């Protein structure tokens, strides 16, 4: 019997399960409180909740189905074929082999002009996936093995269906956020805002209380789910690092790519950083990782700290050498 060197990381699995469980718990609690509110105070604010959920679902489904197009146009990326340029040919060559190694369908490849060496993967499933790299990732700063490590990390995001998981996980946060906004405006304008759809007039004391409670619940749910989603995102990054390193068998190459890319990013001027920020959740290394030490910043971060990622990779390296 051949032995396996690819032991799953049970700690990471357990932590991710707990995060998902808590996220589900918050979601269920949120729904129960809403139903209770509505049944106690009548349907006066039903329209608000209804619209928030409808709009939230619309946004989620939209971003789920158009994730590839949205992300590519936000990054101003163009799809490339092997004939486009020597860099594109090299990119295709590396991805070809990784796909054959991992038994995955080949994603479409895109390149974006940017001074930040980075990469991201998007698309709702493996067949629709697009892998995008920035031009500066390919300009020779990273050697071929490091580049391969970065691409293997992104391919792992595709294999783990991270776009789907994160979009669905964000659904709750989006609804809570919309609800807060609606309730806030409803409160501001005397609760009249909600009447448009349902035809209810809630210009009374009960309506105001309901809106206030909805506002409070929405804020709490939004805050908690925000933190949980960030936590989940960090775990997914670690999982992708792990799977990518095991795919190439070269954890140290990925580690050295990480140090190079993070170092380079910290030196890039502010303007580019702000432009790049909305895409952070899908990037290989976040654009705002320059500050160190602040644990509060770590809590809000979409990516684990460099140290944590390097620690995990050196552990994998040890496992492989044994």
């Amino acid at each position: 019997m051949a032995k396996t060197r690819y032991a799953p990381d049970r700690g990471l699995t357990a932590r991710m399960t707990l995060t998902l469980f808590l996220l589900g718990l918050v979601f269920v609690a949120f729904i129960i409180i809403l139903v209770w509110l509505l049944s106690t105070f009548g349907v006066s604010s039903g329209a608000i909740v209804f619209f928030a959920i409808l709009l939230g679902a619309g946004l989620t489904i939209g971003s789920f189905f158009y994730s590839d197009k949205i992300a590519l146009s936000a990054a101003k990326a163009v799809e490339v074929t092997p004939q486009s340029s020597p860099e594109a040919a090299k990119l295709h060559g590396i991805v070809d082999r990784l796909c054959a190694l991992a038994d995955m369908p080949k994603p479409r490849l895109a390149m974006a002009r940017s001074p930040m060496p980075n990469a991201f993967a998007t698309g709702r499933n493996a067949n629709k996936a697009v892998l995008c790299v920035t031009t500066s990732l390919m300009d020779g700063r990273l050697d071929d093995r490091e580049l391969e490590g970065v691409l293997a990390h992104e391919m792992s995001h595709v294999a783990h269906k991270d776009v789907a998981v994160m979009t669905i996980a964000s659904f709750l946060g989006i609804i809570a956020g919309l609800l807060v906004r609606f309730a806030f405006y409803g409160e501001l304008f005397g609760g009249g805002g909600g009447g448009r759809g349902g035809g209810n007039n809630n210009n009374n004391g009960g309506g105001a209380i309901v809106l206030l409670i909805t506002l409070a619940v929405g804020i709490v749910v939004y805050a908690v789910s925000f933190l949980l989603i960030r936590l989940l995102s960090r775990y997914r990054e670690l999982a992708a690092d792990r799977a990518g390193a095991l795919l190439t068998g070269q954890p140290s190459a990925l580690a050295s790519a990480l140090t190079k890319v993070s170092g380079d990013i910290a030196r890039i001027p502010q303007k580019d950083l702000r432009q790049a920020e909305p895409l952070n959740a899908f990037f290989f290394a976040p654009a705002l990782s320059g500050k160190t030490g602040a644990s509060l910043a770590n809590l809000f971060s979409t990516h684990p700290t460099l140290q944590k990622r390097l620690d995990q990779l050196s552990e994998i390296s040890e496992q492989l050498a044994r």
Partner: protein
Amino acid sequence: MGFLDTLLGRTKPVQPKLDDLFAVPTAAITLQAAMGLVPTGTGSVCFRAAEGRAFSDIEKDVRELLSMGKDAAPVEVTKDSYGFTWLVCRHAADDVEALVTDLHAVNSSLVDGGFGPQLLCTLVSFRDDSGKRLGLVYLYKRGTFYPFAPLENERRDSALELQVRGAVGADLKIEPDLSRWFPVWGAPGL
């Protein structure tokens, strides 16, 4: 990958499928009869070397294993520009069986050492009178074959490849998804 694995961000490295490799000698006869493509006696195994002692030890063992025996052929080791390692075995042109046995020995050593997922592909090369080159590529993870016929300047002779697919379709499991027929430019021994 199951639902739970997706939820938890887990992937298991894909294990290679090895047995189909022994169908190559039959296919070689068919290729020779139908298209005049003759095996050159050269074959290679391509894998992604993992870092660390464990893998380099296994790699060394494999090379020693292949260069033993009375009719041992010299084994060449090359690294391509993508960082993949190719072990090239050379045998007499008419002894495809011995070649496949050697290639299989490489596979099983890696699998026994726990590095099965590092295997990428195996290539057996053919040539016809007019100098056309053809590689029969075996994809370990899919357990399928596909033909690869390189021309000058990184172009492929797709017509020849499709013709080969038709000829050996009965002997070999040919990869049905054409997008997985990835090129191996400059593969050693081709």
